[in-house]
């Protein structure tokens, strides 16, 4: 139902590096859960609309007026790696 390759592919999409012992464990877990979920196959939902929101809310906006920003000092204080007021990350190669 779900192969080791599938799991590695999902891990890669999820940006999680899996250790070898985790791969088997997660494959088994996901297999069990997906197996449990197959119970939904009993339901015919071809004529059912999906529900993304339980509330029938619509058109919630804000006006285009400026609210003071945090400012540079408050914005960057959450990071331990700052250079020139910017967040420093390993080199991104394009």
């Amino acid at each position, binding site marked *: 139902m779900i192969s080791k390759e*599938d799991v590695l592919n999902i891990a890669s999409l999820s940006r*999680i590096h*899996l250790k070898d012992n985790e791969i088997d464990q997660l494959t088994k877990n996901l297999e069990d859960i*997906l197996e449990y979920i197959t119970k939904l196959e009993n339901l015919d*939902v071809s004529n059912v609309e999906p*529900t993304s929101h*339980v*509330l029938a809310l619509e058109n919630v906006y804000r006006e285009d007026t400026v609210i003071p920003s945090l400012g540079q000092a408050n914005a960057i204080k959450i990071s331990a790696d700052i250079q020139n007021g910017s967040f420093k990350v*390993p080199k991104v190669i394009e």
Partner: protein
Amino acid sequence: MKLNHLTAHEILELIAKKEYTAKDIYQSVHYQIEKTEKEVHAYANLTEPASLSIDENKSFPIPIAIKDNMCILDQETTCSSNILKGFKPSYDATVIQKLKDSGAIIVGHANMDEFAFGSSTETSCYGPTHNPWNLDCVPGGSSGGSTAAVASNQAIWAIGSDTGGSIRQPAAFCGVVGLKPTYGRVSRYGLIAFASSLDQIGPITKDIKDSALLMNIIAGHDPKDSTSINRTVPDYTNSLVNDVNGLRIGIPKEYFIDGIDAEVKQAVLDAIETLKERGATLKEVSLPHTEYAVATYYIIATSEASSNLARFDGVQYGLRKIPAKSRKSSIVDMYEETRATGFGTEAKRRIMLGTYSLSSGYYDDYYLKGLKVRTLIKQDFDKVFKDFDAIITPTTPTTAFKIGEKTSDPISMYLSDIFTISANLSGIPAISIPCGFSSNDLPIGMQIMAKPFDEEMLFRIGYTYQQITDWHKKRVDL
């Protein structure tokens, strides 16, 4: 009676009579923390004494525990996950702002399952919280730290969040009152999201009256949350009426199935009988899609979670790990190592399940299907609420289980939320209130559900029940 055993409304009376000050109350809670926290481990971290604010002139100077997934300005907020260690938000959640304005004293961040992924508070990076009624048992989860703090008198009030039962299930396990309000009633701004379309913040208290008081503080429209409804908040204390005469209450047969603990079942049936004696009409109803709720929930909740938790990537805040040996590019290495190290097993499981169900080729069969079944589950409730004012069920199929009992079996853990999940999928308000004890002295909870935005109905029924019974007055003495 000990000071920290009291409810907030009792304390406020004492303060009004000038018998005690807010500071005295806080001291009694602090004393209890020093005495019992080592055993219970309800807190992820405590507020530094220097930043504690006690204002005797405010209306509600009540010591309160906040689940570790709500942002408090400059106070470490981690969702009990290694990946957020050291993160100090640059803003207050709307709920925190409201609490601070009302004078509530924030004692600390309560322990929780990592990112609210769990039903036992065992997946926390700080280690498990213990059930105050039996330290070998779990407090439930994911707001287990919050409910344990109240049950062990280490806080008078607590705030939890509920995505699939995370307030109600631990409230039932810890013998306290836990309310999941209607989706949209309490602002989610500043609540670190698990599943955005299901999450809702709610009060955890010792009795119904306190629940109404706390809801008065936290409920209301917030322009910062697009899913918060702009609708007048009633004064919930007005619904503290000792009268259920003529109310029509539905008892869904799908919630009294095989596998439910006999003592739990009996306690809830007794409670139903009590209400019947006070003039409520009780009738069996059917919520036919109940058996699909858990599967539906795990698709929707994990899908949203996989996206919500993608931002924990080591770029701005929290944990950053770089592997010793490069595997891909340096930035991808950072992402993958940070997330591999920072997330616990259950978090990885859920992120991956959610990623899978949203991924190309699977979306229609999983996520979209989940949203459609959600419609059916919601319609079940719409139908019943045409003829009924409320629905009563057990909150959980069993009482608190042993620590470690279900950690290796994710599905059995997921099934412990079987009765609470549907309220989140359909957005309706639901409350758990204590309705008895098992033979081994563990609390039992009864769940009441009502129509969207009819929290008043829950308070009315709960209040009436608590006028007749004493379960909510029992305290653990630790």
